[in-house]
């Protein structure tokens, strides 16, 4: 069982309030190393320079959306296998399907409860301690 405190996380969302809420949720779940960026354009070089174990990214963002971000991560030889969880709106099934094709590990539909996020993370990493 992996320790949440050992998992480095990058949260990407263009809304400051949403990033703060996700950060608080992760910290409540035991994650200690949580960094965040307001755009995929900023997050991509950051995770290349300082690798993380888990990327939690919104889909709907200007400039580079979550799908383009996922594609960029998956096509990178160094960070290509980083666990990627996408946050989507409730009516974006086509986005989820496209994300699955691109190799997303899991997705969470907003608005979500902390338990839902924990469950999606645990489906990838196993039960967290």
């Amino acid at each position, binding site marked *: 069982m992996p320790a949440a405190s050992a998992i480095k996380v990058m949260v990407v969302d263009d809304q400051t*309030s949403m990033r703060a809420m996700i950060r608080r949720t992760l910290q409540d779940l035991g994650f200690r190393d949580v960094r965040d960026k307001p755009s995929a354009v900023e997050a991509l070089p950051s995770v290349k320079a300082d690798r993380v174990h888990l990327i939690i990214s919104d889909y709907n963002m200007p400039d580079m959306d979550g799908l383009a971000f996922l594609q960029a991560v998956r096509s990178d030889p160094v960070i290509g296998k980083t666990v990627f969880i996408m946050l989507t709106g*409730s009516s974006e099934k086509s986005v989820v399907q496209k994300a699955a094709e691109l190799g997303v590990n899991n997705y969470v539909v*907003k608005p979500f409860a902390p338990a839902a996020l924990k469950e999606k993370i645990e489906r990838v990493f196993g039960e967290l301690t």
Partner: protein
Amino acid sequence: MQRIAIVQGQHAIADDPDTIITTLLGSCIAVCLHDAEAKLGGMNHFLLGEPEPQHRVRPEDRHRYGLHAMELLINAMMQKGAARHRLRAHVFGGANVVPAFGKIGTANGEFALRFLGTEGIAIGHCALGGILPRKVEFRPWDGTVHTSTIEERFAPPPRPSAAPQVQMQGSDMPDEYSHGDVELFR
């Protein structure tokens, strides 16, 4: 003139000069966003999460609904050509119309102001709090808004919010936030 009426859990956007978005508010909040350059606007209508006798919603969970409602509206605006840095907001509602619900209207208003402050979205006009329901009419094309308080018997009954939906295209609040009968803002 086309009128788009939205209810709790919905939002609408429009860029047509002949369209008005309307709603009736009790303890709920309506945030009207306008981008003057894109001549585009939108309104949502949300409640953070209504406490029910059988199922109390924790405060932190209520905020998730508000966050989501605001995100849906902002995303819809941006997909139609609005720019986040140009957005200006008018905020209405948050009346404590049902004494049994305590200060839920106040909490809704505080959430809206805190959200807009955190996101750096300028607030134009704000009519929050009090005990009377409000009617809001928003012209998204130029950002003008007309609001009036109405008799309590015409107020929409609050109900719990689930995931907010797109309707169609297109502490105590200080007394100074609570306005009188009829106002016209730009």
